[in-house]
């Protein structure tokens, strides 16, 4: 089992790669790995409560993955309420995850 940190800086709906990165997170988690999806920059748009994409993030968290959304990115975009299963976090948390909480880092 490995600890994967996936940082998503792009709007998940903007490119088809957004679907791929979600699939990657799901498959890694389903394969017994520990996945943290950290949404930052436009990545947090998907975490807005009620958005179509937010259901996927909720499902990912129900699978056991940790889904986090950068606080500054959220406030800059007016994302005030997050989808179920998504927690707001600071870049301090991201640094901690890189330093001590992950084995592999993927940045999308």
């Amino acid at each position, binding site marked *: 089992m490995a600890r994967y940190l996936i940082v998503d800086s792009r709007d998940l709906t903007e490119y088809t790669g957004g679907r791929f990165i979600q699939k990657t997170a799901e498959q890694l988690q389903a394969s017994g790995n520990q996945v943290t999806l950290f949404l930052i920059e436009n990545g947090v748009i998907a975490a807005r409560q009620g958005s179509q994409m937010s259901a996927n993030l909720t499902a990912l968290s129900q699978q056991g993955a940790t889904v986090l959304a950068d606080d500054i990115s959220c406030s800059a975009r007016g994302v005030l309420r997050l989808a179920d299963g998504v927690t707001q976090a600071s870049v301090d948390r991201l640094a901690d995850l890189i*330093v001590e909480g992950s084995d592999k880092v993927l940045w999308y």
Partner: protein
Amino acid sequence: MATATVETAVAARVKKVAVVLATGSYQREAPTTVLRLVEKLLQRGVDVNVWAFEEAVTLTNRDQIDHNEPGSLQKLLGEKHPNVGRFIDQMLRAGLHGAKLDWVSCILCVQERGVEKHQMGGAIVGTLGDLWKFVKAADRVIAIPTYR
């Protein structure tokens, strides 16, 4: 057994991070995000090596000028619109007394953009060989993708 667990945890702690960045000033949010993260990594005693190429070599152009913000917005935004290079400069200097930040700008990219002679003090003009050494030495490599 408990000792072994502690040793494993200590061994797993990241001490050196390499960041590969190709996004320039005023293009996307990536340089700001990288700087936010680099600051936090340095605070944790992690050495950071940034390999800047393509448009990212303009980030360390020392001749960038802060423009005035519009008068009506200065209360909100401040008097000047600061450039990213200013923050890089601050972090390079902060490394003198703690964890170290090395910032290397690709030689081909600076020459193509005419900024080779304009790189700020502390930024090093280097080659792909430096990138290779950064990657080889790093506990974690973070490649920031560009938008195409």
